[in-house]
């Protein structure tokens, strides 16, 4: 893990920082514009359940000159979380925001091949597993491109506020692993976190340099998890879109039968 030099005392927010146990994800309200595909009823997964190699990736930016506390920076980050995402990666927090136990829906577009435009839709979501004053960790559901956790945190290092995104994940199934290793998905995901940190830095008027660190935690693939492909959110989202005209045609027919 990439240890920060300092971390706030979390005693005050201890009881409520963790989500209660969630066996199946439940979407309580669907924000306007969100699709809520591939999330409802899915089990949240950890880095232990995925298929591919486990990577720990750390992205951080120093917010030089920002005179806020790490908690104040995190408060702004949480409030603007969807705004700091790239346009092809739309986040839809519920009204409760990034609080423990809440589900954040995601509608993303990914390139089919490296270097091509992001046109393939992927609808998914994440569960807020942990949230305190300076840290938010989200957990992915079955079918998500990654199996594991993404942690967004702020801390002070050498008198400077640092904002960090850290993921501890495996690709969820063999197809995602293939795309991750050979077809640029990993680099695409890296670009998203770099974009997020640059957006945050720009919000504070800082031209930050995002630093990246990657550790291959487990080089093995877990063949016993190959079956996860059945729930692949990318495949299911494409099927959903392809089937949309048929659903439209079916609706009047169903009404007439009544």
């Amino acid at each position, binding site marked *: *893990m*990439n*240890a*920060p*030099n*300092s*971390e*706030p*005392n*979390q*005693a005050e927010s*201890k009881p409520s*920082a*963790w*989500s*209660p*146990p*969630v066996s199946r994800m439940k979407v309580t309200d669907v924000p306007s514009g969100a699709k809520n595909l591939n999330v409802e009823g899915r089990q*949240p*997964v*950890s*880095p*232990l*359940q995925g298929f591919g190699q*486990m990577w*720990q990736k750390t992205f951080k930016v120093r917010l030089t000159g920002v005179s806020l506390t790490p908690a104040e920076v995190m408060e702004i980050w949480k409030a603007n979380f969807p705004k700091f995402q790239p346009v092809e990666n739309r986040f839809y927090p519920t009204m409760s925001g990034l609080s423990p136990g809440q589900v954040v829906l995601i509608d993303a577009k990914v390139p089919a091949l490296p270097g091509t435009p992001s046109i393939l839709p992927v609808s998914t979501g994440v569960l807020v*597993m*942990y949230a*305190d004053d300076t*840290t938010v*960790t989200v*957990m992915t559901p079955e079918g998500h491109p990654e199996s594991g*956790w993404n*942690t967004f*945190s702020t801390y*002070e290092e050498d008198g400077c506020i640092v904002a960090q995104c*850290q993921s*501890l994940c495996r690709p969820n199934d063999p197809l995602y692993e293939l795309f991750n290793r050979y077809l640029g998905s990993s680099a695409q995901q890296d670009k998203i976190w770099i974009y997020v940190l640059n957006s945050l830095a720009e919000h504070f008027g800082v031209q930050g340099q995002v630093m990246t660190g990657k550790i291959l*935690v*487990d080089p093995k693939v877990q063949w016993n998890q190959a079956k996860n492909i059945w729930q692949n959110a990318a495949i299911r989202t494409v099927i959903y879109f392809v089937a949309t005209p048929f659903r439209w045609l079916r609706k009047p027919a169903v009404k007439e039968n009544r």
Partner: protein
Amino acid sequence: MTSEKIQLAVRKASPHTSVIDIKGEINAFAENALMDAYTQATSQGARYIVLNFSSLDYMNSSGIGLLVTLLIRANRQKQRLVACGLSEHYQQIFELTRLNEAIVIYPSEAEALAALS
């Protein structure tokens, strides 16, 4: 502002079993201390490692991430990692994070050692 708030002690419970007593907080700062304790346990010839959480004050999501990396290291060395002394709250967190599927939890150290023997 705080820094490392963890104290770890490694004990040899049997020729092939070591116990790591964890006191304080497991957060991102605990990495070096935890990995040093693991290395010490391994150098004692441990095939089984019991993480004793009975004096744990707090663990955040970075701490859970550390346990995952520790588990992977232990698995690669063909060692078995188990836990004991977790409060009900942290048992729920093991359940939430699905760590309980990879690390067996025993109520007490005595029960963990009995099961491993």
